[in-house]
């Protein structure tokens, strides 16, 4: 029997209260669901809502469970499966430090400009680049940098939103 796993990006609007992230993460670890990426931040200091973006992988049955289990959490307001809802945008931001010298240093800078990465810091032996894009773009950039020197990476994880003229998860209602 082959088990077909799908990758889904799910957005969750929650009350920004103590413990809410622990509830979400505890749900995933307790029930054995995968987390590929999870980002969270308060998105509005008046409604005190946070938005969590989760990238997960599972069979359709598991994905349905994940959504139902998330929706059951009391401080959760809305759960939206962006992957099944239609067109959406996913972006990540990454900060990449590369320590190297000589030709490799010039190559790193050249690649950074092709990837439209910004240079945030530089010394004679290092750069810190900022890059935004899809996870695969970020990964490609990290892979290239890794071959050019010692690399340190900090990634935000995926942040996502639907395309089109409907604000289906408004911050204030």
């Amino acid at each position, binding site marked *: 029997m082959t088990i077909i796993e799908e990758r889904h990006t799910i957005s969750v609007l929650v*009350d920004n209260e*103590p*413990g809410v992230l*622990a*509830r979400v993460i*505890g749900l995933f670890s*307790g029930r054995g669901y995968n987390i590929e990426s999870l980002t969270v931040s308060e998105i509005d200091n008046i409604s005190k809502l946070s938005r969590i973006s989760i990238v997960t992988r599972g069979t359709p*049955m598991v994905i*349905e*469970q994940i959504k*139902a*289990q998330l*929706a*059951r*959490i*009391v*401080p959760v307001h809305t759960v939206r499966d962006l992957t099944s809802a239609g067109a959406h945008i996913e972006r990540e931001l990454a900060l990449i430090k590369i320590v190297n010298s000589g030709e490799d240093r010039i190559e790193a800078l050249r690649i950074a400009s092709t990837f439209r990465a910004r240079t945030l810091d530089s010394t004679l032996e290092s750069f810190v680049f900022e890059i935004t894009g899809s996870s695969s773009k970020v990964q490609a950039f990290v892979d290239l940098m890794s071959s050019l020197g010692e690399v340190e990476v900090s990634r935000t994880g995926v942040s996502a939103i639907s395309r089109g003229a409907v604000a289906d998860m408004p911050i204030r209602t």
Partner: protein
Amino acid sequence: MDGVDKTNTDADNTAATVTGAEAILKVLAEEGVEVIFGYPGGAVLPIYDALFKSNTIRHILVRHEQAAVHAAEGYARSTGKTGVVLVTSGPGATNAVTGLTDALMDSIPLLCLTGQVPTHLIGNDAFQEADTTGITRPCTKHNYLVKSADTLCSSLREAFHVASTGRPGPVVVDLPKDVQMADVTVEEKDVAKVTARYQPQTEPDRAAVRKAAEMIAAAKQPVIYGGGGIINSGPAASDKLRELVALTGFPTTLTLMGLGALPSSDKHFLGMLGMHGTYEANLTMYHCDVMLNIGARFDDRVTGRTNAFSPNSAKIHVDIDPSSVNKNITVDLPIIGDAGRVIELLIEELKAIKFKPDADAMAAWWGKIQSWKSIDCLRFDQSGDIIKPQYAIHRLWEKTQGMDAFVSTEVGQHQMWAAQYFGFEEPNRWMTSGGLGTMGYGLPAAMGVQIGNPDKLVIDIAGEASFMMNMQEMSTLAQYNLPVKMFIINNEWMGMVRQWQELIHGGRYSESYSESLPDFLKLADSFGMKGLRADTVDDLDGIIDEMVAHDGPVLADIRVAKEENCFPMIPSGAAHNEMLLGPEDKAAAPVSEEGMVLV
């Protein structure tokens, strides 16, 4: 506050200032709480002090916090109200964890108040500090750490709402001691605010109900599979189920948690289904063409091997919790809503389409079911002097008929025999730990049942090993003179473990003998209670009569056959049509390796 006249503020102002502890009791009273099961300690002393001064709420002092939670569960399950527990911080809270998990698994509405060290000490490894909200997050429906007096009342009120609506469950409110002593203004309850964040869907999608009616109307081999959700919905749901069964004439089976939703005497009732369910119930499930699941969660104890579960049926699943749907078994038609309401609408829809059961199909279907019934899978052989455990429970049932008995159980063989041989005519009469299977549940649960139903006959059908897990509660029975009957099916073994070891582990009885049991008569005597013992079949009826007639707690030590096994049994990992009916069956169906790893 100088110059302010404080004398009349209490009388004419609902928003009067009181201490946190007093506010807690005020909110409890406002929510209709009559009784709390608890155990004191440093971090809840202000609440105990407030209890001392007020006489609105009764406190039942248990002997262990786990028992407080089970007692509240028994109270809740038998009355339909939310059970309330009060324990101290640290060990008080951790002792409550088993009970909370039990209540979560069985969907029992509970509010558990835990004391906590003062807010400024939280995180300092203070004396009797435990991360109670952290520990109980996975074993509660929701929990709160009340860090400020401002949110005390709103948290408590929301906690009640969350515990008791939708799929019920336990809610913990962790109360730092300084919050209990702070000044609190008890604002009037704003229902809209209290219910804003949690609004479960109780009203089903009408089109789905209509679709269900059509599927039912077209069924030739239908079955109704009812569960604990019908009990959770309230007694009206059981009434509606009776009406639905009478209208359709459909065969109906119930889970362990659903027993009582349909009277056991109803001719459509097939008995319990599942691992220790009846042959006819399981085969009806296996061969049905339309399955109507109402308030049951396709538990593994019920489905057996999922890929062989009722392979040819169209499945309708009525549940209030969307996460119960398509979790274990994929269904054709989910209906999210309250069981009682859905059945009511389903009856309306069936009447609207002038539903008449297909007489020929039903006759043929019942014919098949009758042939499965004729196997008489619950037969047992009561010959000789030694009491068979099945017989003891069967006689207990027969001799208490018409007494509207409330029964709790511990966990093990006796629990399954109670489910098989004790018939329930009404909902809320059967208290058992289904999902977690907690030994030690039955005695404290019976205590809670008796508190909620003071004039009723309450019996804990126990195994001797389970009984010993919370037998300290005999002291509570004695203190409050709760006339609970402890009916101990004493086989001197952890029978259910012994049975698995016999059937699955080659008869290697590793650590499953109940060694060094107390003399139960002396034990009863030491608490000033009546103790009785039945050694032979001839003793049994007299002992039951004496137990039931006695006005006070009784411990009855029923010495039964030691090595009796509980059948029928679907071994783990097997399908409904692969049941073991009795000892003669065991060689024929060895447990698969896959099955061995299952519990």
